[in-house]
């Protein structure tokens, strides 16, 4: 079994690799993480838990772009006030 820390680390890496290139959503990310570790090693529930922790630690944040996206924390370009 992949450890929670391993899953978190890979999940974070994935989001980082998409930053500024692609708006990535939870079902897509989940699939990618499971494919990486293999279904025997990592379940949907494990990815859910990993994402929950990354969000609660504020390493990742939710965004919106035609549905909910996962992003690195940043200041909106348009929030220049």
């Amino acid at each position: 079994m992949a450890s929670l820390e391993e899953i978190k680390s890979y999940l974070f890496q994935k989001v980082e690799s998409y930053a500024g290139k692609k708006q990535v959503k939870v079902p897509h990310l989940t699939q990618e993480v499971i494919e990486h570790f293999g279904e025997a090693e990592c379940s949907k529930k494990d990815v859910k838990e990993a994402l929950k922790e990354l969000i609660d630690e504020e390493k990742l944040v939710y965004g919106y772009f035609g549905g909910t996206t996962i992003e690195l924390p940043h200041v909106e370009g348009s929030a220049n006030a």
Partner: protein
Amino acid sequence: MSDTPMIDQLETGPWPSFIKDIKRMAAKNAMCKDLLGLLEMSYKDKRTHWKHGGIVGVRGYGGGIIGRYSDSPEKFPNVSHFHTVRVNQPSAWFYNTGALRYLCDLWEKHGSGLTNLHGSTGDFVMLGTTTDQLEPIFTDLSEHGWDLGGSGSDVRTPSCCNGMARCEFACYDTMNLCYDLTNEYQDELHRPAFPYKFKFKMSGCPNDCVASIARSDCSIIGTWRDDIQQDNAAVTEYAKGGKVDIANDVVAKCPTGCMSWDGSKLSIDNKNCNRCMHCINVMPKALRPGKDKGAMILLGAKAPIVQGALLSSVIVPFIKMEPPYEEFKDLIRRIWEFWDEHGENRERIGEMIVRIGKGNFVEEIGLEPLPAMIKEPRSNPYIFYEEYFEEE
């Protein structure tokens, strides 16, 4: 001359005007003043000056806040941010005046003071605040027992009709189910992880006062499976009173033609009644829903966004709806698992069912196919009923 000649015209009709309301708030709130300016500019330019999307939410939540930024912060600095906050409404929208005062005061302190009751999701909608105010608003709401509603790809704030609180037609306790589901699905509500949004709406009977059949991915509509309760003395009263013309107003309008009236006796062929509520609505003192009550579950309504509008259609014609609602929750779990696996990005459950076929969907979630699941019964011209043969 006024700074806002175009939107001023929206005050001239005999109807209530949101421009009048915003102007009243603008006297004491700078956001509302700039909002008028930005709106006027949109009318002049014939396009919106709001930008959609971006980071939303408060710590740990992915729903409940809808981010809005304007594209003209130099001209209208007070509305450079104008985020919407969705507050989870109480079941069936029962508030006391203290609760309403609290919410309005909170919003005058932290936002524009403008509200919208209620959004089509059901939430108490607070319009217009800045990013730095979001956490203080959330903390204050939480301390007073309120929570944010849904937005994005999550379970949206469940909503229901007032059901048993004040309606004799209610076939199950809509308010209790609404409260129960809201608590059961906290994770799904606050941490969006679906292919797209998912709405529950609950009506206590087929009158469907919350229009669940048109507005929710999962519509839960009260119904009964025995016979309509009939009080013949009261039927006679209606007939004698002259206010109801039973032959024309009731029997002739029964959509399944399952009623008859011989001038003194009303008969209902309950096997053929489709529980449309018409006769009961016209003669509530004489007719009422049966005693064996529950709900039907329908799936798939949506407004046109990516694809066209759909109404929900039946997947469970009758289910008892009593706490802890385990059979229902088990069904929902199977439905979500399947949608999660097979739903495409931004595909609502109704669209997925159309794409893969309802027969396949029903099989995949482990239900037996039933005639009640047919979306448009009696409309297929290639089915010949025996009665037609008899006429020949």
